[in-house]
């Protein structure tokens, strides 16, 4: 049984791994053959070399960004689900407040980040709030849609048996909305990484607390192309890890009953 699961896992992991290696190899060969100027382009092997040379610095930066992403994402998960529940409870409340959540989605982060610096000072708190703002909207919307999509007879069943509001929330609305909420969290997880990195451009700390966004800014200014690539790669890995975490949570919550988790 475990041997089989291991084999299944390998079978899932092999295709993206092979594709990734093939693309890296093509990139490496292309750089070696055409030999572009190094301030314009560099090879994967050069990125790897520089990244190893400054591994401590990159690890610290990745950790600092991870902390901001984790805070921002956790906050948007809690606030987003709560806001979705509140909006779903009343049409009037939804009509009054839903348009304002769209503002969160459309206002450019770089435009509000300076305000956050004024209120919170540059640093992990301001960066976390950036990650939070960018990732909030999909959680609110998916919670709202999930609750609204619960079949009418199920709602009526709870009414017929005189269910209390708490029972309606925890036994019907939240479990019924879980598939939709998970889809929203998956989008939010990636957005939180983008929010934190972009947030650091404006609201990041420069000292020992600096994150991947600052590494990107500094490397770009100093023309250290390999460091720039390394920081981008680490940010993507962080995003993949976040989405993977949400997928794992979705699996644990739904594998017994929801079609989205059935084996292929």
């Amino acid at each position: 049984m475990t041997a089989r699961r291991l084999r299944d896992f390998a079978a899932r992991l092999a295709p993206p791994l092979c594709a990734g290696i093939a693309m890296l190899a093509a990139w490496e060969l292309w750089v070696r053959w055409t030999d572009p100027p190094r301030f314009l382009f560099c090879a994967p092997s050069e990125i790897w070399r520089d990244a190893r040379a400054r591994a401590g610095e990159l690890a610290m930066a990745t950790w600092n960004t991870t902390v901001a992403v984790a805070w921002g994402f956790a906050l948007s998960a809690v606030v987003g689900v709560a806001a979705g529940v509140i909006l779903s409870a009343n049409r009037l409340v939804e009509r009054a407040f839903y348009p304002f959540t769209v503002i969160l989605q459309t206002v450019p982060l770089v435009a509000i980040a300076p305000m956050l610096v004024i209120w919170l000072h540059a640093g992990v708190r301001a960066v976390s709030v950036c990650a939070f703002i960018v990732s909030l909207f999909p959680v609110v919307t998916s919670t709202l849609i999930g609750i609204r999509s619960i079949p009418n007879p199920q709602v009526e069943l709870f009414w017929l048996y005189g269910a209390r509001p708490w029972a309606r929330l925890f036994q019907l609305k939240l479990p019924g909305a879980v598939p939709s909420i998970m889809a929203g969290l998956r989008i939010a997880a990636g957005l939180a990484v983008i929010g934190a990195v972009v947030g650091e451009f404006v609201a990041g700390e420069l000292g020992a607390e600096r994150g991947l966004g600052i590494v990107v800014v500094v490397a770009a200014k100093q023309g250290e192309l390999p460091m720039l690539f390394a920081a981008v790669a680490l940010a993507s890995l962080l995003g993949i890890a976040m989405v993977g975490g949400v997928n794992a949570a979705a699996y644990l919550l739904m594998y017994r009953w929801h079609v989205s988790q059935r084996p292929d």
Partner: protein
Amino acid sequence: MTASLSETPRLSPGTVAPGMPVGITGLVRRFTTQASAPVEVIAGVDLEVPASQFVALLGPSGCGKSTLLRLVAGLDTPDGGAVAVGGRPLRRREHPEALAFVFQEAHLLPWRTLVKNVLLPLELRGMAIGERRDRALHMLERVGLSDARERYPSQLSGGMQLRGSLARALVTDPRLLLLDEPFAALDEITRHRLDALIHELWCERRFTALFVTHSLREAVFLAQRAVMFSRRPARVVADRPIDLPGERNDQLRGLVTYNELVARLYQDLLIAEAGA
């Protein structure tokens, strides 16, 4: 009222409370759409259902039978007239007690196992954990689903899901059971089995039943009385007793009287369809 049940002996002794009578007087329901004038769905229906009677509600599709059922359950509010359940008028947005509703589809909660679905009504009414589980397990045994108790709805066939929803409806020992075409989507054999099951349960518990169906055979098999509604807006066009032996089984389906009753209801349906 022809087929009152007072003379029928109760098949199972014990604690089961008898059914509740239902009184419907001058019931009117209109639906307003923004596009057009209000559509009258039910136009002055009067219907007296004595305690423990099994009544089939028949009529052309979309005639308002389901709306009538929803009004009796308090899931919808009438525009005129009144519904009384158990001799007491139903107030607006009141949770009716001792009433259960079986929907067209099973609508089990997909994230709960079968047994947890069946005990849900008891849980919502605040019964203690051990007791509600015992009662749900007993009910599952009664509908023949004991082996499937820990399965999730997605792992059950359509017929099993409907049996589960029947168990969920009956676990509270309702005195009025409302069924809204519950078996419309099933194959013939499964449907016959479930009809037989409902009949058995009704014989045991003697709840009052209002059963909306499109199948005349099902109506004759189960009911003591068949009420035929006209095309929308719904009015009663025929109200017939079904005089068949108290105990219904598969042999009944071959009887001449059974088939005559089905044929007569078919005539009623043609009249109703023509828009009497």
